[in-house]
Each structure stands twice: as C-alpha cells, then as structure tokens.
C-alpha cells in the first residue's frame, strides 16, 4: 500500500477537498487490492442496470400484457404472458447475481485492506525502537491497530453500492428523458430537490450525531470511574452524589439525542414523501398525456417505479460527508505510525562473544529520552561471574540501564561492553542467546506455560523443567489444571504476580544466559522463596548477575552495590561499606526495608490491590 499525500491533519474541511482526498485514499486501497474491487464494481454496475431495467420491464408489461389482456377488442397471447413472466424472473436473477457479486467482493475488498493495514502497523510496532512504545500509551497503540484500521477502511464498504446508486440515478434520468421529455421534467425537478434536502439533512445531523457519540463516551467514562471507585463511594456514602453526576451526563446525552431526533423527524418523512408527491404530480400530468394518446399507461408505471428508486442517494450523500472525513482522520493516524523511522539492521562485521562467563563494563554511558536526560556518565564494571546490585530510588534510571545492557536501546554517549566486546558490534541474534533480562512487569503470552518459557525455541522438556525448578515455579506449575500445558491469560488461568515473575524467570534461565539481568524481577515473590531462588542461581548457574533490588536480603547477596542518584553513580562498594559511608544509602535501604517486607505478613502478594474474597 502506498502512502500518497493523504493527510487529514490539515483542517481544510471544504467538501471538495475532503472529496478529493477521500478519492485518493480509495485509490490507494484499490491499488493495493484491485481484483476484488473490480469484481465488486462490475457487480454493482450489473445491479444498477438491472434495477433500472426492472422498471422498464414493468412499463412494457403494462402496455403489452396487462392493458391488452383487459381490452375486450385486443386480448393477449399466452406467449406474450410467458415473455413478460420470464422477463421479470430473468432480470431478477441477473440483479441477484449483481448483488451477490457486489456484496461478497466488496466485503472481501474491505477485509483484505484491513488485514494489510493491520499487518503493516504491527510490522512497524515490531521494528521501531522500544522508546516509541514508551512514548505512546498502550491504549493508543492498540487503537491504531484496531479501531483506526476499522475507521480508515470504513469508507470502502459502501463504495460499490454508492457507485451503483450513481449509475442508477444517471441511467434513470436518461431513461426518463428518452421515454417522455415532458414527464421527465417532473423527475428532473425532483432529483435536485431530493439532493438539496439530503444535503441539508446530513449537514445538520452529522454534528449532532458526533456530539451524541462523544457524549456516549462521557457517560461511559463516568460510569467506569464511578464503579472503579465503588468502595470509596460506598464508604463515604457518595451514592447520591454519583447518581446525580451520572444522571447529569445521561441527561446531556438525552438532550443531544433528542436534538438529533428533531432533525430526523423533520427531514426523514419529507425525504420519504417526495417520491410519493412527485408520483402524484406525475399522475396528474400523465393522465392528460394519456388522454391525448402521447403516452401509454406503461410509461406512467415505468416513471413511478423509477421515481421510487431515487430516494436512495441519501445514503451516498451522507457517505461522502460522514464516512469520508472520519476515514481520512483515522488513516492519517495510521500513516503517522507507518512513517515512523525504522532503525537500520546491524550491518558490517559482527563479532561473536567469547566463551565462558562474560564481564560487563560501562564506560561514561549517558542516555535520555528526547529532552529528558536519564543517565549521566555512568561507569562501572562487573567481573565475569560476579554479582552486582543496582540500588537507587524509583525513577533514578535503573530500568533504563538494564535496557541498555540488553541493547533495547543504545547509549547516546559512552560505550557498553559485554565480554570486552562493544555491544554495538555484537551479533544481535547471538546477544539474545547469551544475555537474558527479566523485567519487573512479567509479561506472559496467551499460550501455554511451556511455550511461555521456551518462546518457541526447541528446548528439551527436561531443561525447561529444570529451569522452572530453579525459578521455584515447577511445583505450582504442576498443580495447574493442565500442568505445563495450561493456557495463560484471559481465556486461561490467571497467575498471581509472584507466580508470573517466576515463570518469566524460568524463561530466562532455560536459555542458560552468561549474563543475567534481573530488573526487580522477584519483587512480588515471597522473600523466603526469593532468597532460595537467588541462592540457587548463584550455586548452579555460571553467570554474571546484575540485579535491580530493593530488599536488603537481595542486595546483600551481591558482591558489589552500585548506588545511583539522579541518573549518576553516587558510590560503589559492598553493602556494608555503603551502609557505613553513605547516609543517603542507609536512609533509603531502611525505608525500603519497611515498605518491602510486607509480603511475609500478607502472604505472597497477589499484585491485585483489593482482595475481596479474602
């Protein structure tokens, strides 16, 4: 799919402009999947022509079958009756084919474009730097891949039908003029009247509809907020306040919808009645033409039938005014994603890491997100097989540092070496095998436990179980309904925070990493269990360990502690040394000791705030 210059960001809302941009967006979609579009439009044309043909057939039947049948002087032959019947059925079959072709392929056209857009958005999500994900809320990213894709393709579905309607209007008008120019005047006056009415209707309705839609959002978020705070509402006795607040939003919605209703009640019946009124005029004039012998009854039937077809442009006009701008805006948002620069793949010579445990060395590393500087000139070293704890207050840059260590981003200044090799020249695939990170937010995929640990890499079952045992996860996993094959997530089993962290840890351990980075990865695990895990890690795994930690027990396991303040290294040393030399360090460790020893009283924390069924 090409990204031609379709940006709805400039707020030029003029009809012509929106129309042109809408058409070029449609052209983009057509170029992407031309075949279903062509079939759908062909079906639409067939449908349009046969629809007008139906009216003509009824007119002819009136003159050649019905009128003579009731004329005692003329009479009708059975072959004429059969011809009439077959014509009606034949045209109906063709029309049905046209509808099926149009609908089926129009649906396919839309669905294919949606699939393509979705794939491309996700491709970008997979390739952009992690900072992009940090900078955009999850909801927004999901919306681009889901709601925006729907909205951006919204203008496609009614497209073939709209083409059909335009064909019908043009062909009808031609048919009217060719059949009887005088009667055609009635019809030709009706078309602009209907068009103007529809236009006014849509223009008046559209802002009201949008306002109502927005208010539905307000009602929903008010309800959401109120129910989220249900406990507070109850304990403070705020029910009446909340009902008034919600009632107010519901009332605004009611008023906006009634305003919509007023417009619809005014224009809807008028638009519906115009063909009837025009047909009555047609009959008045037509009867006169009938008496002078200029037209036949069949002509009147054909005209009345064609008139009734002309109410349809309503949809087309609202389509141009309503679907076009919304789709353009949504597509502009998607384009914003698609134009996100993708960092180039690592090229040139890549180095593989040396064998054995790997040391880690940071040399004057600085890093920031945009204007916000996070790390300043950080330098420290972890010898092969050593354990270092990163300690510092929340937001000091510890997590950012761990991300640099696994090369989820590159430092702005300074170098970061693993096994004495600059990370930037390490083969990225090899790096993933040798350096593993476990985040505090343990993310599990909606697949089996086994798959969550292996992530599709072909590990032996025994290795996976060994890793799970090491992470103290084996026991609870075997107690799950399907053991290692239990499916996680919404439609499966929900694990507690501590259990999830242990599965995430097993995921890292099964890879037998030579550098393991734990970013507060056992924060929700019971301290006793945590101590067992860390002890086992040090005993059984030949790995260099970098841990971000809060608990004294964890910190004191490390050979050295790196104390970070405001994105810079304040001091390094053993836990005992820092306790003695750094008052700030001591104060912080004490405070965390208080805060983080919660779990042995609360049992293992579930991660959920309120436990109702305790």
């Amino acid at each position, binding site marked *: 799919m090409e990204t031609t210059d379709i940006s709805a960001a400039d707020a030029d809302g003029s009809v012509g402009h929106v129309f042109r941009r809408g058409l070029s967006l449609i052209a983009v979609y057509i170029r992407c999947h031309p075949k279903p579009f062509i079939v759908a439009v062909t079906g639409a044309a067939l449908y349009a022509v046969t629809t007008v043909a139906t009216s003509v057939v009824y007119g002819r039947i009136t003159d050649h079958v019905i009128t003579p049948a009731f004329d005692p002087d003329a009479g009708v032959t059975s072959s004429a009756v059969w011809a009439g019947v077959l014509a009606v059925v034949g045209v*109906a079959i063709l029309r049905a084919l046209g509808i099926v072709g149009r609908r089926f392929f129009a649906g396919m056209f839309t669905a294919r474009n949606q699939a393509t857009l979705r794939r491309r958005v996700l491709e970008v999500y997979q390739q952009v730097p992690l900072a992009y994900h940090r900078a955009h809320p999850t909801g927004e990213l999901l919306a681009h891949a889901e709601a925006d894709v729907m909205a951006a393709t919204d203008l496609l579905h009614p497209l073939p039908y709209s083409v059909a309607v335009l064909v019908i209007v043009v062909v009808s008008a031609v048919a009217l003029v060719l059949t009887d120019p005088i009667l055609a005047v009635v019809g030709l006056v009706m078309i602009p009247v209907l068009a103007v009415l529809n236009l006014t209707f849509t223009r008046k309705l559209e802002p009201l509809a949008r306002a109502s839609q927005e208010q539905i959002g307000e009602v929903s978020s008010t309800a959401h907020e109120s129910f989220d705070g249900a406990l507070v509402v109850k*304990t403070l006795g705020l029910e009446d306040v909340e009902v008034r607040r919600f009632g107010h939003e519901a009332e605004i919605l009611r008023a906006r919808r009634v305003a919509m209703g007023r417009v619809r009640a005014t224009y809807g019946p008028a638009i519906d009645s115009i063909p009837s009124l025009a047909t009555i005029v047609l009959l008045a004039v037509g009867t006169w033409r009938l008496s002078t012998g200029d037209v036949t009854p069949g002509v009147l039937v054909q005209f009345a039938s064609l008139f009734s077809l002309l109410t349809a442009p309503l949809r087309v006009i609202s389509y141009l005014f309503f679907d076009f701008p919304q789709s353009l805006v949504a597509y502009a948002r998607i384009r914003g994603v698609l134009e996100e620069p993708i960092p180039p793949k690592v090229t040139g010579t890549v180095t593989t890491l040396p064998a054995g445990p790997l040391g880690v060395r940071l040399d004057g590393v600085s890093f920031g997100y945009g204007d916000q500087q996070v790390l300043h000139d950080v330098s420290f070293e972890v010898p092969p097989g050593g354990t270092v704890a990163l300690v510092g207050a929340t937001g000091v840059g510890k997590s950012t540092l761990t991300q640099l260590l696994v090369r989820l981003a590159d430092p702005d200044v300074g170098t970061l070496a693993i096994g004495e090799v600059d990370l930037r020249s390490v083969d990225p695939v090899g790096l993933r095998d040798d350096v*593993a990170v476990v985040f505090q937010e343990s993310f599990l995929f909606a697949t089996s436990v086994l798959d969550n640990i292996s992530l599709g890499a072909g590990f032996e079952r025994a290795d996976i179980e060994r890793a799970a045992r090491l992470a103290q996860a084996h026991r609870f996993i075997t107690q799950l309904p399907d053991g290692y094959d239990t499916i996680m997530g919404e439609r499966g089993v929900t694990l507690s925070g501590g259990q999830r962290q242990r599965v995430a840890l097993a995921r890292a351990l099964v890879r037998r990493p030579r550098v393991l980075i734990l970013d507060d990865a056992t924060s929700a695990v019971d301290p006793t269990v945590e101590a067992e895990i860390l002890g086992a890690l040090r005993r059984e795994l030949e790995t260099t360990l970098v841990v971000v930690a809060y608990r004294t027990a964890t910190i004191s396991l490390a050979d050295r502690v790196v104390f970070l303040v405001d994105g810079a290294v304040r001091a390094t040393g053993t836990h005992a040394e820092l306790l003695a030399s750094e008052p700030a360090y001591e104060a912080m460790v004490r405070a965390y000791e208080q805060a983080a020893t919660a779990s042995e009283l609360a049992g293992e924390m579930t991660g959920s705030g309120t436990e109702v069924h305790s």
Partner: protein
Amino acid sequence: MSRLADDDVLPPGARDGGTPNELADPSAAPEPELPDLDGSLAVLRQGLEAAPEFRSGLRGAIVLAMLSAVGRLTVPLLFQQILDRGVRDGDLRVGFVTTLCVAAFVVVGVVLIAQRFASLRLWISSESALAGLRTRTFAHIHRLSISVQNEEKRGALVSRVTNDVDTIAQFLEWGGISWIVCVTLMVGAFAAMLVCSWQLALIALAMLLPLVPILRFLQRGMVRAYDRVRSRVSDTLTHISEVVMGAAVVRAYGVEERTTATIDEAIDAQYQQQVRANAYSAVVFPTGDLIGSTAMATVIGLGAWLGPDWGLTSGRLVAMVFLVALFLEPLAELSESFDQTQNAIAGFRKILGVLALPVEVPDPEPGVELDDGALDVRVDGVSFHYGSGGPLVLDDVSVYLPAGSHVAVVGETGSGKTTFAKLLCRLADPVGGAVVVGGRDLRQVSGAARRRSIRLVPQDGFLFDVSIRENIRLGRPDATDAEIDAAFGELGLDDWVARLPAGLDTRVGERGDSMSVGERQLVALARAQVASPGLLILDEATSAVDPDTEQAIARALARLGEGRTTVAIAHRLSTAEAADLVLVFDQGHLVEQGAHAELVALGGRYAALYDSWLGNTKA
C-alpha cells in the same frame, strides 16, 4: 416493482465484527442463540415495567405506523383509480383527476406533517425512558454489595449502563418502529391486495410463505458466522496487545519473527471468517428479492391470463403490482430489525438481571446514632460467606476492641482478615452473630452516622478526577477550605502539599493516576482526618512506595490514629509491632490475639511469621 431497499445495512457488528467495547467485555456480545418468543415477550413486558416512560412511546409508535401506512398506500390506490377511471372514451376527466390528485397530495402532505410530530414525540419519550433506565440502573449498581462490584465485574457493569442501554436505543429508533411500521404496512398492503383481487392476493401470499423459513435459516447461519468473526477479532486483539505490551520481552528474547508469524496467522484467520460471514449477508438479500420477483411474475402472469374472468381491471392489476412491491418492501427491513430486536432483548435481559439483584445492606429507617469520640467494637460470634452459601470466609469470630485501642490484623491472603475489616464498616452484614460498635448493633445504625463515625481507608487510594481539595471534601461536604488545610497540617503533610504544583488545587487525573500510590494514600488519610471518625479501618498498601512518601505516610498514620480506635489490615510487621493488640487470622478463624511481645513469646503462628521476617531482613 423493487424499491432500492438494498442499502448496505448489515446487522450490528457485522461490518467490523464487533465494537471495541464489546470485545473488552465478552458478556456484552449478543447471545448467539435465538431467544424463544415467550421469554422475549416476558423480557419486554418486564422492561416496560422497569421503564414506564416507554408506554407513551408505544402509543406514539402505533400512531406513526398507521400514518406511514396510509401515506404509502395512497399512491398505488391513486394509480388504480386513474388508470381505470381517469380517461373515459379517450377524454380526460379533468375534474375527477384533479380532485383525486389534489386529495392524494393533501393526504400525503398531512401524513408527512403528522409523521413529523408523531416521530418526534416517540423519540422524546424513548430518550427519556432510556435516560431514566440508565440512571436507575446506575443507582442500583451502587447500592449493591461489594461482592457484585468487584474488579472483574466492573467492565460488565459499565456495559449495563452503556452498551446494553444503547442496544435498546438502537432498537427503539430503528428496529422497534420498523416492526410496528412494517407489520402495519404489510397488513395494510395485504388488505388492499385482497380488495383488488383476493385470488391474486392469496396466490402471492402462498408464494411468499417459504421466504420465512429460508430467511430464518440464513439468518441463523449469519448470526453464528458473525459470532465466529467476533471471537477471531478478540483473538487478533490479544495478539496485537502482546506485541504492544510485551514489546520489551519480545525484543529482549529476540522472538520478533515468531510473534509476527502468530499475528499473521491471527489476522489471516480473522480475514477468512470475515469473508465467510460476508458470504451469508451477500446471499440473504438477493434470496428475498428473487422469491419476491417470482411471486410478482406469477401475479402478473395469472392476472393477465385469468384476471378478466375474475372480474379484474387493468388498473387493479397495475395497482396489484405496486401493492405486492409495497408488501415485499418491509421484508428486508424486518429481517434487519430482527437482529436489533434480538440484541435489544439481550440487553434488556442483562439490565433487568442487574435490577433484580437484591440490595444486601439496606439502611435502617430511622437508624440510631453513634456517639462522638473513640468507639469500642464488640464482635460477637460472627460468621460470613459471600453470595448464597459457599464456604465460610469467617467462622464464629468473637473479639473485643476497647475504645481508643490500635489493632493490627494479620494473616495470609485468604485468611479472612480483609473480610473482617469490611464487616466492621458494614460493607456487608454477617450471616451469623453481630458487630456492635459503640454499643450499637451496626445493622441498627443509620447510614449517615455510620459513614461519619466509621471510616475505611482502602489501599487502592482511589481518587476522583477533581482537585485534591475537592477529593477531601467528598469525605465531609461541609468542610471549609481552612479545615481542609488544617487537616494536612495536623497530619504533618504541609511539606508535601507545598511541593505540589498547584497545592491542594492540583488535579489528580483520572482515578488519581497522576499521583503515585503513596500520594493517593496520603490524600485518603487527610480525607479521613477531615471527617474525624471514631473508628478508623485502614487497609495498608502492599506495593512499595518511595522512601519519602513512605515516611510521610507513617507519620500521618500515627497522628490520624490519635484518640481514635484504629484497625489496620497490616502488611508491615512494624505496624503489628506498634499495635496494642494483634489479631492473627488463619482460614477464617481468629487463631491468636494479644500484644506483639506476648504473641512472640507464645511461640505460635505469629512467632513463626516474625522469625521468618527477622531471618530475611536482618540477614
């Protein structure tokens, strides 16, 4: 004669396979099975009772239906009159034609104006009904017990007052009126057909009857197909969210290709189902059209062949053609409104389900008051379980908490300690025994007195999206600005307030999200301070907060507890150490009680907890 009825209106959700809202809440998706007629009527009847405003709307709808039937039948009848009687022996009957046409014009015009007023009235009454239903349901939900309002069900509850009401709105604005208008129109058209030629009318009807089972069959298939689309959509969404939420893990473990493959698969599966479901909707309409046209052809053929013998006129036969078209026209609309009706009934059923839930903790009228000052608590043989039946969460718990004492409640998750605290502020009533506060059984205490004198500070520290000051005022609506300022001062939080960008007028963001967990708890503590309760129940936060805030919380807590009875659901051993009385819960039983030192000396459960704490943190 086919009007252009085939515009692209698909069943709700068909175009995109469900709205995001429906995805967020699986229970909001339309039920796949078709409702039985009796059940549906019962639901509608109950729905009318729940929202009586609908009744006047119903009358409006019937009037509207009659009007539009009259309007639409005018033209075919005019046709018949004019073709048969407008021209006599080649001469135009000017007076007759003019009179008829003017009359028809007037009828259509009057109907148009009447329609405008009738549909506006209908619209107004149904919107009032919906707003009323929404607000009443909302109010009822807030009166329900905490077990109904729990986290997992919140999304569904929001759907009750949004999506579900909206399906009814959609039904009232299109589907419901369609039913009445369409049925009236079809009955009117058929009556006119019978007058024109009863033989042809019956033949047409006989030919159209098979349409009913055929359309039903196709629609069933379509509903199921779109249901499958919906579940594929939610599948795709799951995988998309993995890419977004798991971005760091995917990159750190280098599993981009595998993730891409999963997504491709999901997107492809969704596409296949969309195309399949679309095939149904591509076939439904033309099927009706084809059968309709066959019926039309039969009417024309038989009418031309046998009509003269049956005493038909050409005008009547032409009118028949128009009438059959008129009779067929509502069919497409009806089949659409059938889906909307189904959704609306499902929505109504869910709303009625919520309204039918009993209010478990009704306030006594009138209730007794509570004394000012610290309140004592006597818990007398209290048992509790959630819902009707189920395992006991608390089993025969008795304890006395003297006025002004500081109590810590400890125990593992599931021990019943949180439930115990909730019973103390009457978030639920015990199923056995009694909770007596300040000498009064809680069930007899008026709601206002209970909320004033007993305060729960929940750990999630939920705040409303207004300023801090307004959040505090929610705790006591008549509190002055000076009293609110003073409360922060009393809790030693002036420094903290000074650091806020706009002081107490700082807005806290949605659900308080622009503040940290610890800061939210500070606000909650100040809210309790302003209300000056005699019994304070505190659910300590389990998540770690930064050291400064942690210290501020500890200080504020100490001051807040002065001169009051406090019960803390303790997650910190330091809280238990400082308490006058520690209650240890285990599997719904109160297993140990006493001061910290006594319990440690006892060498029981509490002592074991304490040892493990010492072992781990002082290592």
